[in-house]
């Protein structure tokens, strides 16, 4: 029963059918889905809207009941309240009590987890710093922007120092700068050895942080594996040169063709619109 060997998340043959009331027909949201996430691993669940990502997460957190199959967190079945001791959850588009300030929100969730008074105070200071919301800690959430809500939500998920966090579309609706902050936070969690399960339909973001991804479509897993294995094109190599003359490039092309390699593409790499945006707006905000 070593804790290291128990999977952080295990989902085994999960099926969820939403029974339609009256005339509405039932919806099969998740079909025989299985996956495992190791402790400390960052797992990305990707798929288009309506593919069953949120439903899977809700079953994992015991918010809805599976129609078949079972899910567990660190070996404890999700239907048991105890399974939620080691997990933090950030739902899709979260809302918290608008009348509470940032600090009060974290206090509320901390007390629900039974964190003792002194420990909680220290923990809240640490979390506010981590999510960079110290300046807004005394303001009610009513006045928070989308990105700030998302970050206080992340802090809330982390309040009892769980070993797993489940994030449903953590960057949806957040501007690029805010979205990068959240990505950095996820990387920070990874360094601390906290397992992360996140869902997204924005693929670049998943690519930057996840160790492993599962592609889910219409409720079924269609592809799963380590990110490098899934996306690297094994028989190609990229060379990036700076200040290369036209002559040099011509020689490289000749060399390649003389050496039985196929020359695929040459040109100037483009920065992404996102990094351009970030570069231009960096340091101007706040």
């Amino acid at each position, binding site marked *: 029963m070593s804790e290291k060997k128990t999977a952080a998340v295990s989902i085994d043959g999960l099926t969820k059918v939403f029974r339609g009331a009256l005339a509405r027909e039932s919806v099969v949201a998740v079909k025989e889905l299985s996956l495992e996430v190791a402790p400390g691993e960052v797992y990305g669940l990707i798929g288009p809207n309506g593919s069953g990502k949120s439903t899977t997460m809700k079953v994992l957190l015991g918010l809805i009941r599976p129609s078949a199959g079972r899910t567990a967190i660190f070996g404890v079945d999700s239907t048991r309240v*105890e399974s*939620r001791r080691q997990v933090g959850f950030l*739902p899709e588009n979260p*809302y918290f009590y608008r*009348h509470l300030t940032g600090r009060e929100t974290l206090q509320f*969730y901390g007390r629900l987890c039974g964190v003792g008074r002194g420990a909680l105070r220290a923990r809240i200071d640490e979390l506010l710093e981590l999510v960079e919301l110290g300046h807004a800690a005394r303001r009610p959430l009513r006045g928070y922007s989308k990105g700030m809500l998302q970050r206080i939500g992340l802090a809330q998920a982390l309040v009892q120092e769980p070993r797993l966090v489940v994030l449903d579309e953590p960057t949806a609706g957040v501007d690029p700068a805010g979205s990068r902050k959240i990505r950095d936070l996820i990387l920070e969690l990874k360094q601390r050895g906290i397992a992360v399960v996140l869902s997204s339909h924005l693929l670049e973001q998943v690519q930057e942080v996840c160790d492993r991804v599962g592609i889910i479509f219409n409720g079924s897993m269609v592809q799963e594996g380590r990110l490098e294995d899934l996306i690297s094109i094994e028989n190609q190599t990229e060379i990036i040169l700076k200040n290369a003359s036209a002559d040099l490039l011509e020689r490289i092309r000749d060399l390649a063709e003389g050496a039985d390699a196929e020359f695929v593409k040459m040109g100037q790499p483009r920065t992404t619109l996102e990094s351009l945006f970030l570069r231009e707006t960096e340091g101007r905000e706040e």
Partner: protein
Amino acid sequence: MSSREADRKPRVKPGGTVATRRGIGASAGRIGTLAGTTFLQLLRMKTFYFLLIFSILVVVASTFNVLHHTGEQHLKLLKDVALGAMSLFTSLFAIVATALLIPSDLEDRTLQTILAKPVPRYDYILGKLCGVILVVAVSVVVMDLIFGAVLYAREEMMVAAELAGATESGGFAEEDLAVLEERLRSQGLNWNLQNAVAAIFLKSCVICAVTMLVSTIASTSLFTIIVGFVIFFIGHLQSVARDYWMHALDAGLWKRLFSGLVALIFPDFQIFNVVDGVVAGEVIPLGAMTRMAGLTILYVMVYSMVAYLVFADREL
């Protein structure tokens, strides 16, 4: 600083994880946290403003003697208005405040974040219920204080005025004056009034519990409020209807069955109806109050239990 560090040490598990309390049975700490936040929510939503309306009403009723009542009648009217308003306001407030809680948590998905913590669903229901009952209790105490102060002030003024008037016109013996004062004071502030206030509070607790049950089934606050009002009226009328049917000679089986069913599902608010008696000067015996409290606890327990059973199955 170092002593606080030492305090914290035992709570931190080897893995660097903050230890959480052991049992996942109902926890007073969690229920208290939920109740406190609910209290704060209703406080910050400024729901307490209705107390202002109550104060104005009581002060107006005490100041203006439009009907040119005698002192005794005026005090009686003041009590009637104040206790009637207190009863109605508290009941309506209990319905509306309770109806705002769970549906808005559901809609905002705040509920998902709460239940994603190690919080059993019965703790959530009980926390919300305790929070709203606490708010109702504070409101009742405030209204009671305002009412008591106004009634006392009015009573003193009237006793002074009537005694002065009687002495001036002369012809009253000492005993007559004493009788006069006694009569006025019997309509003034006394402990029996607190029985009426207690009954108002107990009734509101039942209203909170039954509205909470409705809100676990409903998905919107508006629907909960409407159903809450319907139950409120049925709860008041059912015993009248029952008496009528039971005693009517042609009371058929189906009528008896129907009224029996209604009595089983809906609370009977008539058992809390002591305000008229108290205003008329009837003293409510302790035994009656104890029975009322017992019934309240029974109602609240049954309704919260059913609310939990409904809520336990709810998909979020």
